């Protein structure tokens, strides 16, 4: 970090690491701070704080500073691309050309992809400064980052607690002021859950809104990249940047991208918000329940119409999810055989070498590959995977019916606040239940976000989930933004 002194001038204009992304963008545009200075400040802060938070697996300081200097040049020329000069972080599941991209797994240790993921190239084109790759549960399989092969990230609000997962590194980085925004991926709740646990905003776009090209696959029909930010507007800017049609992803939706920032009008009068009874169940932490109920009242006070609805197949979502996600994962992860990339562990013959190499997968990944392999195998397909695909139809119908009645569905993001590290790591089923409120929309064609709506008596953040119909990201952003305008939760920062 010897370069720090070279821009001491800029440093004097340094600003809070908790400034919003849109706030920093304004400062960059009016020249009150340079991207180089902002980036150096972030890198310094990472050096200081991340040994505790452990949110980054790789810090790309050199590349970031080069991108910052280029951004300063472009800013000086009056360019105004959406993220020009803004330091952001990306989950280590997104491929970045020439940068080690390992998906939290020893099986990809040292893997340097010869390509940028679509979303990474979009960030670069928008002028973003990518400061590093954030920690994730291996291949996105987990809810706490404890299943990362490299490190366990910490919750900035309480470092004894998990930041959630699998995009826990991104959430901790954004909450801890180590990036102005971040990208995660959400297969069963992996953007929304850590956003909720870390007190930030995390959005899971409609499947097909954001290209999966270059995203290391976990479950292909469920995976989606999502933005994370400290405010709703910040999240909207990130979403704006990464959305769009990509002809290299056959599941990408070819439709125009609306102006998500413009959707943040503050006006939600007349909007119908549905409250599904199935989410207010036994096991829901009373403090979470109280915070969510207070948020409902707040939204009603802002002019929204609150409607009781039913999503009758909610309780089946998690079983479906584990059948579909693991089946797809068992195939997606078959390519890791040590032949073309990744390390190789030698055995006595080709088969044994393959098996010993694949033993580099961590315990939870092996568990899910085994489950997925079993539920697709001869004699079991119909009873497990086949049933799950049919049940998925019922779940999609639930949402379709609900969205005939209401504009947005409101639920808690998670039944509890962040749990202690180590509490659930050895009990997969308990860990799975963490995602009970988030998985439904991954199976459907809905979008959803988590926005902070309170803190429990231990001071840990509580998240409110807003679910929108297919491609209705604008609507959930509008509601979340109006709520944020009326509340202060997003202005509080963790003690780091």
């Amino acid at each position, binding site marked *: 970090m010897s370069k720090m002194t070279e821009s001491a001038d800029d440093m004097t204009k340094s600003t809070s690491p908790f400034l919003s992304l849109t706030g920093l963008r304004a400062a960059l545009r009016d020249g009150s701070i340079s991207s180089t200075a902002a980036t150096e400040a972030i890198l310094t802060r990472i050096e200081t704080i991340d040994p505790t938070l452990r949110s980054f697996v790789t810090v790309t300081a050199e590349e970031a500073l080069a991108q910052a200097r280029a951004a300063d040049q472009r800013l000086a020329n009056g360019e105004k691309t959406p993220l020009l000069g803004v330091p952001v972080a990306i989950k280590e599941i997104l491929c970045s050309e020439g940068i080690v991209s390992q998906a939290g797994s020893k099986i990809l240790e040292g893997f340097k*992809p010869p390509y940028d993921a679509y979303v990474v190239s979009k960030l670069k084109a928008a002028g973003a400064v990518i400061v590093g790759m954030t920690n994730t549960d291996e291949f996105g399989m987990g809810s706490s980052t404890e299943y990362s092969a490299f490190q366990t990230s910490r919750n900035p609000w309480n470092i004894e607690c998990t930041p959630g997962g699998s995009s826990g590194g991104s959430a901790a980085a954004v909450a801890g002021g180590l990036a102005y925004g971040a990208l995660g991926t959400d297969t069963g709740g992996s953007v929304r859950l850590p956003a909720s646990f870390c007190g930030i905003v995390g959005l899971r776009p409609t499947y097909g809104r954001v290209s999966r090209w270059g995203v290391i696959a976990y479950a292909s029909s469920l995976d989606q990249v999502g933005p994370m930010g400290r405010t709703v507007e910040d999240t909207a800017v990130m979403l704006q940047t990464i959305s769009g049609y990509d002809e290299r992803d*056959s599941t990408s939706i070819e439709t125009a991208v609306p102006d998500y920032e413009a959707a943040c009008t503050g006006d939600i009068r007349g909007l119908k918000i549905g409250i599904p009874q199935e989410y207010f169940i036994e096991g829901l932490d009373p403090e979470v329940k109280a915070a969510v109920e207070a948020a409902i009242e707040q939204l009603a006070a802002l002019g929204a119409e609150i409607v009781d609805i039913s999503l009758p197949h909610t309780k089946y979502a998690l079983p479906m999810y584990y059948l579909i996600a693991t089946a797809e994962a068992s195939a997606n992860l078959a390519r890791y055989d040590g032949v073309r990339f990744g390390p190789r562990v030698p055995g006595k013959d080709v088969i044994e070498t393959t098996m010993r190499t694949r033993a580099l997968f961590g315990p939870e990944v092996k568990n899910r590959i085994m489950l997925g392999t079993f539920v697709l195998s001869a004699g079991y397909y119909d009873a497990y995977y086949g049933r799950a695909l049919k049940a998925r139809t019922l779940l999609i119908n639930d949402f379709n019916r609900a969205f005939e009645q209401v504009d947005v569905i409101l639920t808690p993001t998670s039944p509890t606040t962040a749990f202690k590290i180590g509490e659930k790591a050895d009990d997969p089923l308990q860990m799975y239940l963490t995602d009970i409120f988030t998985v439904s929309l991954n199976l459907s064609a809905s979008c959803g976000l988590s926005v902070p709506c309170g803190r429990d008596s231990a001071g840990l953040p509580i998240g409110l989930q807003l679910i929108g119909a297919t491609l209705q990201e604008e609507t959930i952003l509008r509601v979340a933004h109006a709520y944020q305008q009326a509340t202060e939760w997003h202005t509080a920062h963790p003690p780091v």
Partner: protein
Amino acid sequence: MSETLTKFEAVIGLEIHAEMLTQSKMFSGCRVVDSVEAAPNSAVDPLSLGMPGMLPVINRSAVEMAMKVGLALNCEINAYNAFERKNYFYPDLPKGYQITQYAHPVATNGYLDIKGASGETKRVRIRRAHIEEDTGKLTHLSDGRSLVDYNRAGVPLLEIVSEPDMRTAEEALAFATKIRQILRYLDVNTGDMEKGIIRFEANISIRPLGSDALNTRVEVKNLNSFRSLTSSIEYQIAQQIETVEGGSVVEQATLGWDEDRKQTYSQRSKEDAHDYRYFPEPDLPPLIIGPDWIDRVREQLVELPDSKLRRYLTELGLPSYDAEVIVEDRPVAEWFDAAVAAGGDPKTVANWLINNLFALMNEHKQTIENSRVSPQGMVDLLALIEAETINKNTAKSVLVDMFLSGQTAKTIVEEKGLAQISDDGPILTIIQTIIDDNPQMVANYLGGKDKLRGWFMGQVMRELRGKGNPALVNRLLDQKLGELKKR
């Protein structure tokens, strides 16, 4: 053998894997190369290497080629098409699964008519044809290593599966030959078996003659020539008969074929039983093939060999041998069609094509496409014969000239002064000279040796250096010799 063959019959089905001749691979914009000639791993991209995060996108041309073949094989083109993942581990399979069509193939329920042993038409049903992707290639080093080249990985394949409707190796050969011919006609495949661009597998079982049981079948792979196809089937039939007559039962097996030793060999069985765990490919939405799309593809279909053959026999009146030879290869047939369209008499064009042009092409190792004799050029040459400008013998040498120089028949005839002499005067003068110079021959002829007429004809033509109009020379010679006889 003859005794046993009266007791048993064979039941044979074929499976064909044909690479489709696209520019790019089945699911990505990676170049397709000749995987035998090209440098290893020179035609790969992240998708063909199964790299993390890569996604497949369907190649439209490959789908349309598959539809064409389906239509040519009289199949139903299915409206609902889905791709599935077929899961198994092998180092030449980069993703650990092959994307293929399983429950919903592009084409089903077709047939192909072949010619049976005694010339009768035999219908072989086509069960299905589906689209999939090829694997890479392994080579084995003597030092105990294997090397993997992924140039071929992801190349579009069409798998065609017949019903077990063939009863002899000859029928299987006829079917295979015809499938290959159709694929070549449709520009879907070059038909190159040695390079593995088209690959055959045979399923063989036997049963007592008259039974319609379907018994345990043996699958033979690695058939890289038609010779291997027939000899392996014959070998297997004999083996199975021997097994059954020896009181044993045929066991299900997948075998390879050793062409040098002319015998099948056991392929090491995989350590686990196959359980491919097919499931819908989540990265690819289904393809819905509507009637409009089928019609558009049907319109692009070229005339197929069977219908060409029928037309040549009935409309053009070609002898069946000629018709079959011309239909064999689509470029030849198209050359012929163009010559007929340019006004050539079908039978004459066929004669000249088969008897003369083929010989030149063989001698100079050229195909009809790069031959310098165009259909129009041939018709122009034949017109010169018709107009009696040159005779047939001259025309043969003009054709050689055309083939070598690329000049038109007219130019060659003019520049070399090859036009026939069709004037009475000079011919009569020569006849008179020959009569005058050979009194003994004349005497012998008049003495009753009629065969000598041919000798006089030869002498006259030689003096005319082959350019005499044969009909005219004949007429004038008869006239002169007649006059001598009257005297």
